């Protein structure tokens, strides 16, 4: 014990770190702030450490060359003991990190913690978010599978739309005019050296400021932030009603970080690593590339925007968003912190969260793009529609497949979602309406008139006519029944 103490003193004499660390550990935090709401920042930092450790281990095996990258990931997945788990930890760690950083940011916004004197902490936080997203994107590219390949293609086409410098930007991004070996080297350098270096430096600075300025106090309605008096008020608060960070508050951070790491490990073990998907080969066209989870919302937005608005949106919206985030603490640096008195802030946060989840949800099942394999693969039309049907109706069910209606229309949950599900179509459309819809199309549906023979139309419509609940008759045209009654006596 004594030996250790001597050793410690020898080092501390020279390093001089003991005092500042002690000061940091014992700095007072307001009692109410030692709350479960304040654990996300530290969890994000712990996740960053996890990413650095797993990333270094991955880099020992990964080969950043266009010909080898994909193979080296498969070696990790299949040939090295627990290699798949390492990849899974890194992949899920990335997901969790983006999520935790976003939650952290929402919490800081909600608690007004960006106000004086913590403006710069917030601005650094915004850059940390951007860098985290940058890591997620470059990491997805390093996977160098089909999704990565097409994701890059889309990224490049976004960059190329920047006026004047577009082509130059693409060249910079891809390391040449096309996606090739140089592209991967470039992304590797960014993912492994440039962004993590900045991320780590910024994160340390961010934490330093949090410790120096003191953690944000629990917002109380009516407790107004003023530049002139804030520092003194905060000091008084921590004196009167505070406790030392260690051990008063730190155990919650530690517990939560451990729980998050455990959650990452569980997801990694159970859900496995991300890809790599198919080979990055542009000659394989039977593919539907999709971005990773956190870019799905963007994918959804771009799919819904009319083409003429895409370029302005892509160029202006991110710039506006970032400028807004950076400007926030300077525009609203004083005043109320409590969410009870900030209805606009609440409204903004909920609408952004809502829009984001809806768009992400849409992005996961891409209702706008037809399912190109539904016509031949997957489950057939359920037996209940075909077993007791007439031979003609059964042929209609085949027309429905062979003319690829199912790529856009689902029946029994199977099929595309470009057009409405047709399970109950006969109860809302009459025979004539069905014929018209098939022949002339309309909305976003192609007109099939010239591509169907009369017997195919007859079969198809007689099949569609069966798509109604057993206890509910199909929709019928009242005037046709009346006409039939009128005609009948004349023929007898």
């Amino acid at each position, binding site marked *: 014990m004594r030996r250790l103490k001597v050793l410690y003193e020898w080092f501390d004499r020279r390093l001089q770190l003991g005092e500042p660390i002690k000061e940091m550990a014992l700095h007072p935090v307001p009692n109410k702030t030692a709350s479960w709401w304040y654990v996300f920042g530290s969890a994000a930092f712990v996740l960053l450490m996890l990413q650095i450790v797993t990333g270094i281990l991955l880099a020992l095996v990964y080969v950043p060359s266009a010909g080898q990258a994909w193979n080296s990931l498969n070696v990790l997945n299949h040939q090295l003991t627990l290699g798949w788990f390492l990849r899974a930890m890194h992949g899920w760690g990335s997901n969790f990190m983006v999520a935790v950083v976003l939650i952290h940011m929402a919490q800081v916004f909600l608690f007004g913690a960006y106000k004086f004197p913590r403006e710069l902490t917030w601005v650094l936080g915004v850059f940390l978010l951007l860098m985290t997203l940058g890591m997620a994107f470059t990491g997805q590219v390093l996977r160098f599978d089909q999704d990565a390949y097409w994701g890059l293609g889309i990224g490049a086409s976004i960059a190329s739309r920047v006026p004047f410098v577009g082509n130059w930007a693409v060249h910079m991004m891809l390391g040449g005019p096309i996606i090739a070996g140089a592209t991967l080297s470039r992304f590797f350098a960014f993912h492994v050296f440039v962004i993590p270096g900045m991320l780590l430096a910024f994160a340390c600075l961010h934490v330093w400021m949090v410790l120096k300025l003191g953690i944000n106090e629990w917002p109380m309605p009516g407790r107004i932030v003023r530049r002139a008096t804030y520092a003194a008020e905060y000091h008084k608060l921590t004196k009167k009603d505070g406790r030392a960070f260690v051990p008063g508050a730190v155990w919650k951070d530690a517990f939560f970080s451990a729980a998050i790491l455990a*959650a990452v490990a569980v997801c990694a073990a159970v859900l496995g690593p991300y890809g790599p998907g*198919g080979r990055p080969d542009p000659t394989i066209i039977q593919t539907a590339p999709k971005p990773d989870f956190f870019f799905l919302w963007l994918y959804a937005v771009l799919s819904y925007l009319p083409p003429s608005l895409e370029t302005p949106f892509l160029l202006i919206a991110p710039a506006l968003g970032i400028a807004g985030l950076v400007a926030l603490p300077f525009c609203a640096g004083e005043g109320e912190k409590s969410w009870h008195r900030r209805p606009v802030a609440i409204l903004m946060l909920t609408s952004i969260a809502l829009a984001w989840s809806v768009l992400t949800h849409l992005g996961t099942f891409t209702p706008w793009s037809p399912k190109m394999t539904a016509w031949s693969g997957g489950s057939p039309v359920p037996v209940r529609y075909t*077993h007791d049907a*007439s031979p003609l109706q059964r042929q209609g069910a*085949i027309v429905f497949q062979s003319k690829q209606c199912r790529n856009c229309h689902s029946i029994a949950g199977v099929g595309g979602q470009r057009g409405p599900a047709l399970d109950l179509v006969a109860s809302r459309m009459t025979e004539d309406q069905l014929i018209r819809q098939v022949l002339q199309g309309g909305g976003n549906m192609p007109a099939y008139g010239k591509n169907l023979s*009369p*017997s195919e*139309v007859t079969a198809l419509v007689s099949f569609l006519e069966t798509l109604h609940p057993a206890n509910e008759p199909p929709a019928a045209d009242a005037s046709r029944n009346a006409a039939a009654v009128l005609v009948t006596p004349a023929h007898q």
Partner: protein
Amino acid sequence: MRGCAFTGGLVLLSLALFVTCMGCHGRIGEPNDQDELMRPEEVISFDRLYQQNCSACHGENGSGGPALDLSNPTYQALVDDASLKRWITSGMPGTQMPAFGESAGGFLTEQQIDALVAGMRARWMFKKSAGVAMPSYLATIVGNAGHGEAIFQASCVSCHRQDKQKITNTSYLALVSDQSLRTIVIAGRPDLGQPDWEHVRPGQPLADQDVSDIVAYLHSLRSDTPGQPYPDESAKR
């Protein structure tokens, strides 16, 4: 207190996630993705090929779909490899069976089509004790429509009289070929209840000639202008 509830919830949540995902993933370990990693034209697993290209029409396990039940052992005993290969490669003329072979504009290579044929044989072909000689798969004799009509009236109408089962509907006949009719008359469709050649006429299996005659009769009912709108109107009036 609130803190305990929060962490408790978190633990429960991850546990729930764990349990539900165990269900869908099945096991913990290295990913089982060999098939997905292959180039699409290298896949030769029958299950995967069938599931991607055939199941929506022919049924998930080769029966119960709207098109012919390929898993019918009588059908597998009837048909020869060359015909199977030909239909899959170039489609079946006169029916809606599409062409899948690369030579005909599809996506399947010759090896993949061989894998499909071999897979069907391995899975669905049973050697049955050869009782009565089965009619040949391809027609070899010219049929006699008049005689066919007589058999049809005697043996088929009992089941196919009702409106619902009308195989004489001209739109239906325009969408099937003589060969696909012949296949169904011989092999039946056990998944739908259509009896095969041996059982359709009690105690008297159909001969090769009878099958050709029935198909010739159905052929004679084809119309030059099938599929006029409101086909059921004439019946109503």
